[in-house]
């Protein structure tokens, strides 16, 4: 699907029923089959040469991967925005405005969180989107983000939770089992939603579930964190930022938004890769914490899909963490399917099976088998109970489009 090296803009295709190959339907069908988005992410300059039909497909692929605003920012940086057809430019501007709104909300929420936590904990470490925005990391521009994620010292958790509750955040889930699940098995508190603003705050004490086979002490992350100048806030050390995203993508169940996270990884590497202590830090930490495998996947797929500049030396050292060949082949298949671009044609959008397998895999990695069986059994029971007519009538108030945004949680 990635078509590496095949960066020709025109996509020749044999037209069905003897139709000329470049008739709009044939071009449409052909262009949807491979990822224009990946080609443009690798080389934004080619956007200047795309035709109208290509743009239609590219914009669907970008918004399908929640990368519309990011694409707009990328094209702006590459200076090709004014060579884009006017209508496509409108779409990009609209996507950018949506992303700008997320940025505004994030800034506001971070300020509110900081105010709420005054005195409750010493270091508030911003994670992911919030860190990119507040620290001015370029990948934060045009990025869609939903929740604010922070990391605090585990001993401070009770004080932190009490403080945010005083300031209006409430647990999203009231189910005692979910509550128990988060507190016992997860690396974060049950997600909190603000009762007036409806925004979600995730409070982490480390970046992997304590039940998973990886062990990362939150204290190490906090100690290595770096201040964000002039804000009183912190972000993870660059190697930890990279590893966090790598874990999220190739260990947690976040394959649904996979490409977006891969773009984050790519951006972090391009930003921090030149720092002399970056790659040694990444390789050391991965070794000590048993993160070699997710890191291998992260760099492997970054290079493969986005041609991210990973030094050969680093890549060679990581080869020891590569999975056995059959596993790797399977992962290549699954990841390619999960990252496959959304097509404007519904019949092209399969990939659900691959995403499901990756989701199952993430749970497998997250907890020991017995616990997993118990957890999934419980979830199945709840889902079954929700199907009975009685339960349905009580659920109807949630509306059709109520997003199941805690998919990765439980």
């Amino acid at each position, binding site marked *: 699907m990635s078509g590496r090296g095949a960066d020709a803009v025109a996509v020749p295709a044999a037209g069905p029923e003897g139709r000329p190959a470049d008739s709009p339907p044939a071009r449409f069908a052909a262009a949807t089959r491979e990822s224009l988005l990946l080609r443009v992410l690798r080389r934004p300059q080619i956007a200047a040469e795309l035709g109208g*039909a290509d743009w239609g497909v590219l914009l669907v692929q970008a918004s399908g991967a929640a990368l519309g605003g990011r694409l707009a920012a990328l094209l702006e940086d590459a200076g090709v925005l004014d060579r884009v057809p006017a209508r496509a430019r409108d779409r990009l501007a*609209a996507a950018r405005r949506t992303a700008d709104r997320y940025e505004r909300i994030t800034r506001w929420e971070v300020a509110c969180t900081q105010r709420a936590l005054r005195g409750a904990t010493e270091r508030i470490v911003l994670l992911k989107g919030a860190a990119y925005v507040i620290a001015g990391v370029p990948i934060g521009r045009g990025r869609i983000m939903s929740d604010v994620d922070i990391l605090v010292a585990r001993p401070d958790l009770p004080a932190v939770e009490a403080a945010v509750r005083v300031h209006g955040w409430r647990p999203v889930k009231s189910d005692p089992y979910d509550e128990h699940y988060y507190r016992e098995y997860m690396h974060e508190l049950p997600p909190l939603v603000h009762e007036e603003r409806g925004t979600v705050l995730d409070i982490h004490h480390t970046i992997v579930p304590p039940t998973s086979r990886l062990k990362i002490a939150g204290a190490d992350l906090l100690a290595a964190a770096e201040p964000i100048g002039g804000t009183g806030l912190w972000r993870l050390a660059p190697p930890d930022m990279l590893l966090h995203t790598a874990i999220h993508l190739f260990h947690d169940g976040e394959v649904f938004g996979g490409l977006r996270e891969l773009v984050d990884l790519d951006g972090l590497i391009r930003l921090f890769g030149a720092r002399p202590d970056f790659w040694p830090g990444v390789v050391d930490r991965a070794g000590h914490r048993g993160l070699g495998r997710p890191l291998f996947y992260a760099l492997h797929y970054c290079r493969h899909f986005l041609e991210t500049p990973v030094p050969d030396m680093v890549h060679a050292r990581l080869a020891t963490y590569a999975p056995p060949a059959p596993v790797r082949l399977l992962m290549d298949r699954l990841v390619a399917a999960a990252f496959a671009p*959304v097509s404007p044609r519904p019949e092209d959008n399969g990939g659900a099976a691959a995403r499901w397998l990756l989701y199952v895999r993430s749970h497998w990695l997250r907890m020991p088998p017995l616990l997993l069986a118990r957890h999934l059994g419980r979830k199945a029971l709840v889902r079954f109970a929700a199907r009975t007519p009685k339960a349905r009538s009580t659920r109807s108030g949630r509306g059709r489009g109520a997003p199941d945004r805690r998919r990765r949680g439980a």
Partner: protein
Amino acid sequence: MKVSDLTSDAFAAALGSGLAVRLGPFVVHWRVTVPAARGPLHALYAHHPLAEPDEPPDVYVDCRAHLNPRRPWSRRIHLSIDGRFHAAQARAQLSVPALEWTMNWSLATRAHEYLMLHAAVVARDGRAVILPAPPGSGKSTLCGALVARGWRLLSDEFTLIRPGDGLIAPLPRPVSLKEGAIAVMRRFAPEHMFAGVFPGTVKGTVGYVLPPAASVAAQDEPARPCCVVLPRWRSGAAVRTEALSRTGTFLALNRNAVNYSILGERGAALLAGLAGGCPGHRLAYDSLDDAVDAVGGLAA
């Protein structure tokens, strides 16, 4: 080339493989394989131009019968936006209202290059009257009546304000009338063409009035907003207008702004400019004839 230049067979074939139509500033790419939808679509969008082959679509809307392998006896209509499932519709006869709602939803959630108001808008002599109102207030009925009396239809659903110059970009599409309003409109303007009446939708009976050819032909010509009228139909009421304060106008526009929060400060500034430049009025009416005259007076 216009939709009506295609024979119904050619239109059906094009719809099946993908047909891009220009609706105001947008290009909507339809793929519709439900036979029941073809006739009404062909009629309702007869005056709309087809998009040039090289214009990128703003949205891909797909409508087809979906076979569920677990329930092969029930054929449902699936509507997709940009290749992804959006909504299902149990009855093929109701595909057209479902398509209209799907297009509304897709535009409302993506056209942030404009400040979007949930409001009808009509114009005469280049002066546009914005009719923002919640559903049930008679907004579409009054809009349909004004159009029947020669006003230019800019939009029945969305008022698109251009951030650059504050002008309104027309988006003439079928005017949607519900339940009793359909009979009212038939009495008021018997020559007005309903190109599709669909009983039994979730919103009751829905009827669509064909947008006038002249309004569609002028869909690339923006109009300057001149006043804001909040219509309210009341049985037996004498026609009455009441001027709103500038703040009242701002709040009325704000309540009906679709993407105000997404545009942030820019949205607030645009809305304030609009409220500052366009006097607002409440209009209570019973008789459509009186209401049409009253709007004419306010816009003069």
